[in-house]
């Protein structure tokens, strides 16, 4: 019974991943070509999610929030319901950029309650880990570019506001160019870090079963991803630019550095 609930939950996560793809494409291309399929898949995902929760609830005889995984699953389900209501009532589609990835990641975490069999091939295990590291490093590089461009944007904006433009104009690109650079690099950072987090979660799930989620460094990593998600959402929905956007991107970069520092021993995992 319990396994069946997890099966439905994993099926829901697979459907939610279309929403994640939509969010990444929206940030990178500044258009929403996948919103229709994403919202359709999301609705079916919510139904399967409900089936999973009901099955588990019937099995345990109460609302299944006994541990972290079950709570994450219920939380993701409630967020998904709220989003569907807001979208139905207010047509607030851009909220999906924030909520689709969030629901997907929470559901993914919830679906790792029951460990799977260990690695069949150690090469796959090592390659998977290296892909995760590569994705995260690419994400941090893009995040660094976002932060630097945001600070340049801020400086250029201040000069234009002060109306004494001559000194710096020749050395910094126009605001429009910086804005494009920030949007693109932020989109790439979000895409790489999200894929890196997914790669890391699945790797850790297969490697360590259910123990990995309780580690502090995992919490920091998820926080970094959450800040990136918030940054992307505020950019695409509220158009955050200037001081607030620069501060947020520098904060995200700082969190990224802390996460990196917390994971420096990862290399040793490659040799058992």
């Amino acid at each position, binding site marked *: 019974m319990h396994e069946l609930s997890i099966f439905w939950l994993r099926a829901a996560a697979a459907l939610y991943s279309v929403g994640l793809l939509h969010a990444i494409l929206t940030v990178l291309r500044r258009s929403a070509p996948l919103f229709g399929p994403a919202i359709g898949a999301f609705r079916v995902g919510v139904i399967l999610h409900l089936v999973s929760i009901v099955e588990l609830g019937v099995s345990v005889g109460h609302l299944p929030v006994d541990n972290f995984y079950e709570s994450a699953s219920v939380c993701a389900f409630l967020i998904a319901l709220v989003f569907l209501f807001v979208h139905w009532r207010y047509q607030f589609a851009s909220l999906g950029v924030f909520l689709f990835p969030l629901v997907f990641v929470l559901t993914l975490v919830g679906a790792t309650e029951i460990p799977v069999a260990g690695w069949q091939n150690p090469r796959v295990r090592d390659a998977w880990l290296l892909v995760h590291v590569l994705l995260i490093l690419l994400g941090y590089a893009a995040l660094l570019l976002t932060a630097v461009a945001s600070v340049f944007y801020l400086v*250029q*904006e201040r000069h*234009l*506001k002060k*109306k*004494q*433009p*001559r000194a710096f*104009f*020749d050395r910094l*690109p*126009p*605001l*429009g*160019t910086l*804005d*494009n650079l920030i949007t693109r690099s932020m989109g790439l950072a979000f895409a790489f870090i999200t894929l890196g987090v997914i790669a890391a979660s699945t790797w850790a799930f297969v490697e360590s079963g259910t123990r990995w989620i309780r580690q502090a460094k995992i919490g920091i990593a998820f926080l970094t991803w959450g800040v990136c998600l918030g940054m992307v959402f505020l950019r695409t*929905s*509220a*158009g*955050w*630019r*200037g*001081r607030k956007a620069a501060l947020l991107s520098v904060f995200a970069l700082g969190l990224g550095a802390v996460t990196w520092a917390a994971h420096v021993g990862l290399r040793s995992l490659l040799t058992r």
Partner: protein
Amino acid sequence: MRLLVTGVNHKTAPVEVRERLAFDQTALGAALRALMKRPGVVEAVILSTCNRVEVTAAIEEDCQADGMLEAFLAEARGFDRQRIEPHLYRHEGREAIRHIFRVAASLDSMMVGEPQILGQFKAAYAAAKAEGTLSGFLETVLTRAFCVAKRVRTETEIGQSAVSVSYAAVELAREIFGTLAGKRVMIVGAGKMSELAARHLRRAGATHMLVTNRTRERAEEMARLFEAHILEYDRFKAALSEMDIVITSSAAPHYLLRKDEMRRVIEARRNRPMFLIDIGVPRNVEPAVNELDNVFLYDIDDLARVVDSNVQARHKEAEEGEAIIAEEVERLMERLSARAVAPVIVSLQEQLEQLRCAELERVRGRLGQLTPQQEEAIEALTRGIMNKIAHGPIAELRKNAGRPNGIPVVDMIRRVFRLE
């Protein structure tokens, strides 16, 4: 060959004098022909622009040319010479070359770094060329001047920044948006200044334009100019959130746009930057609007300050331009001087060759019948001696050609070898 320049410009003569001395394009040919008839004039060019009228001529070395160009200018334009005399500047030789270089490079222009003067100079050159009044010396100087002007423009930033209020607005728009292609512009109040700014923006690529004005006729007139759409004056605020650039020059006695309104506009734009150019007096936009994030408000004084700063920057760049010109003048003087001693060298070589042939002829009878090998050996021997004798003086001539104190050396070699 001597090089002379005389004329008037915006610094030395008021517009009343300049406009009377100016040559019409159609009269330029006849004026050049008249100038070439003056004694000693070998080459000539006349540059006539709204800020400058000047006559440049290459004349023979021994020609008495004092006041000749001034007299020509007065006579050609029917002006009393005494009246223009105080306004004239004159340059000769090295200073004339330096002056021509400075004019071509726009260092002597009213707005330092403006690009038109080079085109006007090239047109004057083409006119002189068409009349056949350029043939060597002056032509070399002028073509070099064009290269120097290009070098100054490339190696300094003398022409980089905007020096008019309307163009400064466009430059600022570029600093905000990067490219202006596809940007949406609204013109509120169809005044002359806003028309100028809109013209520059249109040239820079802004294609979507809306015009609104209290008087519809004037709005229609401007809309025709820029293929713009007309917007009713009482409805323009509703369209603000769609606009990237707004130019206001309305005669309204109160602010048309206030901070609270613009806050709502920028929120509706989801913080996409917006550039407000307020050239109205009294101002049309509340100054506090500039405090809003992503809104950039420049009034007429702000734009004037940008222009001032750019003008100062140009003057600073002009100092670098002067250094380039000093270097180029030296280089050209060396080339011209080397060219000047070329006839002396040729004359020396001919003199020595004649001497060799004459001496060979004189002793040939006493040598008797010579074999071809012996003839060849004597030719080589005498030529070698002459070349060795000529080597020293020729090297000295070349060495001293470009030096200011080299003339006595050249004269001495002429005297020693009895050269004409």
